[in-house]
């Protein structure tokens, strides 16, 4: 699914003060790309991701996902579109601690059927197997390490087989080694499942694994370039086996 943004502006107002978070952003992301959006804190990365994901529609300009313009969709259509086509991964995982790992992954299925009509339980257990948590279905999120929680969040994002995975600082709460395993998972999903991955980060070594890097500075695109993915060399990070336990 092609993603295109044209003349995107977003202004936050607080009382009489207003701040321009995004200024005339125009870009396009082809289906199957692995894009990193990076920039300093406050540069507008998350705001751009929210606009692309339809989580925030109070912007000017146009955001199109495939043939559909987000602004032309009703609230219910937008919710349904998010459910069917988009997966979200957040820095703080956003898991519900009163639910089990399996129930967390199944959560999107409460709001509609899976895109391919599959059995949610079967798909969820398969995804948890894939992210290495097949033996933790009944665990609560509080019993898991940070990396394991983020993998649960990724499994949840993948349940409806989205076309686009939108990740907001997905390694921000993880140590470098654990973050690396998560990035490897994104790379695998992008390569094997052809899912478009849009990853927001402020960490250069995370942005380095993407094939395209868009740098934001004060709400504007400072640079947009394709790159050869560069994975940390030996010694830069701990091996995946070293991932922490709770």
């Amino acid at each position, binding site marked *: 699914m092609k993603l295109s943004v044209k003349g995107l502006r977003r202004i936050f107002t607080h009382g009489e003060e207003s701040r321009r978070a995004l200024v005339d952003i125009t870009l396009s992301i082809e289906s199957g790309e692995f894009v990193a959006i990076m920039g300093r804190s406050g540069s507008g990365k998350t705001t751009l991701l929210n606009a692309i994901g339809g989580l*925030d529609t109070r912007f000017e300009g146009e955001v199109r996902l495939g043939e559909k313009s987000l602004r032309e969709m009703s609230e*219910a259509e937008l919710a349904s579109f998010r*459910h*069917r086509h988009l997966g*979200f991964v957040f820095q703080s995982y956003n898991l519900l601690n009163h639910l089990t790992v399996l129930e967390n992954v199944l959560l999107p299925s*409460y709001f509609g059927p899976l895109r391919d009509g599959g059995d949610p339980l079967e798909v969820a257990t398969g995804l948890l197997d894939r992210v290495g948590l097949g033996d933790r279905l009944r665990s609560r999120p509080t019993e898991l390490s940070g990396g394991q929680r983020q993998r649960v969040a990724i499994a949840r994002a993948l349940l409806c087989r989205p076309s686009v995975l939108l990740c907001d600082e997905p390694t921000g709460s993880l140590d470098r080694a654990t973050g690396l395993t998560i990035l490897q998972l994104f790379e695998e999903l992008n390569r094997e499942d052809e899912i478009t991955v849009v990853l927001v980060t402020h960490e250069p070594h995370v942005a380095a694994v993407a094939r395209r890097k868009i740098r934001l500075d004060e709400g504007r695109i400072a640079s947009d370039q394709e790159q050869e993915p560069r994975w940390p060399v030996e010694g830069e990070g701990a091996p995946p086996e070293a991932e922490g336990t709770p």
Partner: protein
Amino acid sequence: MKLGKYRALVGQSLRRHRGHFMVSSVGVIIGVATLMLFTGLGSGVRQTVLEDVFVIGQLEVVDPAARAGLRGGGLLGGAGLDDRRVEEILELPGAAAAFPKMKLTFPSRASGGGGLLGRDLGIEFIGDGVPPNLIEEEVKDALGFEDYGAPVECSADEDCREGLRCGDEGICEGKSCRPANEDEVCGEIAYCNRDRGQCAYPIPILVSPQVLEIYNGSVHTALRDSQGIGGRLPRLTEEMLIGFEFDIIFGESFMGRAADRRVQRERGRLVGFSDRAIQMGATMPLGYVIRLNEEFSGESAGDTYHSILVEAESNDAVAGLAQLLQEEMGLELSDRHQQAERAGLLILLLTLLFNLIALVILAVAALNITHSFSMMVMERRQEIGLMRALGAKRRDIQALVVGEATVVGLFAGAVGIGVGLGIAWGVDRLFDTQVGHFPFKPETLFAFSPWMFGLGLGVAVVFCWIGALLPALRAGRVEPSAALSGR
């Protein structure tokens, strides 16, 4: 969102916030308990007053002309109460049955009670007659409620009842007897009438249960500690009195005698208690009264009735029927019906007033629910934002909050109903043990109907919905981007 998934989400939320929900439901429980208690009390009191004291399902009509002293009523336009009038009344919409009633029109007295009281007592005898088929169900004595005095044609003794023989004119009449051979000649039910020296059947008598209520609640209570015979008066039950026999002296009372100074002594036997019986007096089969009136007051005294008892098809039909009887037939309702209407209105107003208190409590409870649910929505803002990001629509989130309110309402309603019933049971026990007997003292002060349980649950759910409405709207308006970023 599918119903099964919706139920699961609501269930998860309720389990997680059970403390919050319990606190939210306290006000509703109190409100529903109060509502149940007062509705049940109003219904119970209404039932006692309108079904036992006034019997509102029945209307007694009188001819206004006859009431004014003009028997036959020609001058005031009334046509008198006769069988034709009974037929006309039966054709009115809402009328289930109509029974003519006739009063004794000459003085009489009753004497007896030695077996129960230790000494015979004498009282004025006020009586009326009703058709036997009016009271069939309430008769509990073997004698039944039949007109044994009605002429029965015969050709042989076998055609007559036990104790009677076929007379010279082909009509059954009592066999000759003496008190000494009463059982042998007259059989089990008939007795030997000493004045006539003939076997006769006792006159079946019905009494209003109100007479017994007034005796037990007032006379017995007032006299039980007194000296003399009053102090020995027992508390009476219907079972004790069924089959009780006493003498009736027609044509003579403590106040005066019949015009021709004739006296006729008969035996009466109490065969049952009925709301349709005369309020203060004794009711017998209509045939006896017609014959006695003709005999003591003249031939025309048996031609017209004094009143007609009209039974409505339901309590709801009473008002319309009363209007037709008055406006279309020119009849007058007895004072009792007007008293019943006033009493019913008063009870209704009191019930509404008390229920208003319950509704105020429920309104306060709804405010409490608004507060609790608002707090919960604020606490769960990030969770709601996540759900929105994962595909939940605004109405899904609103439905989730409303679903939680529904469960709280059903829970609080059920507990409130239980609490209300429990308090009612306690009040009944106190009422039974701490309050002495009085006329028409009911076994229970409360009357609960299935619709009241529906009302309790319905009101609880509706007030929870009202309370949760604003928080649900707020929850639906949560912006996912703002909620997820903690803004």
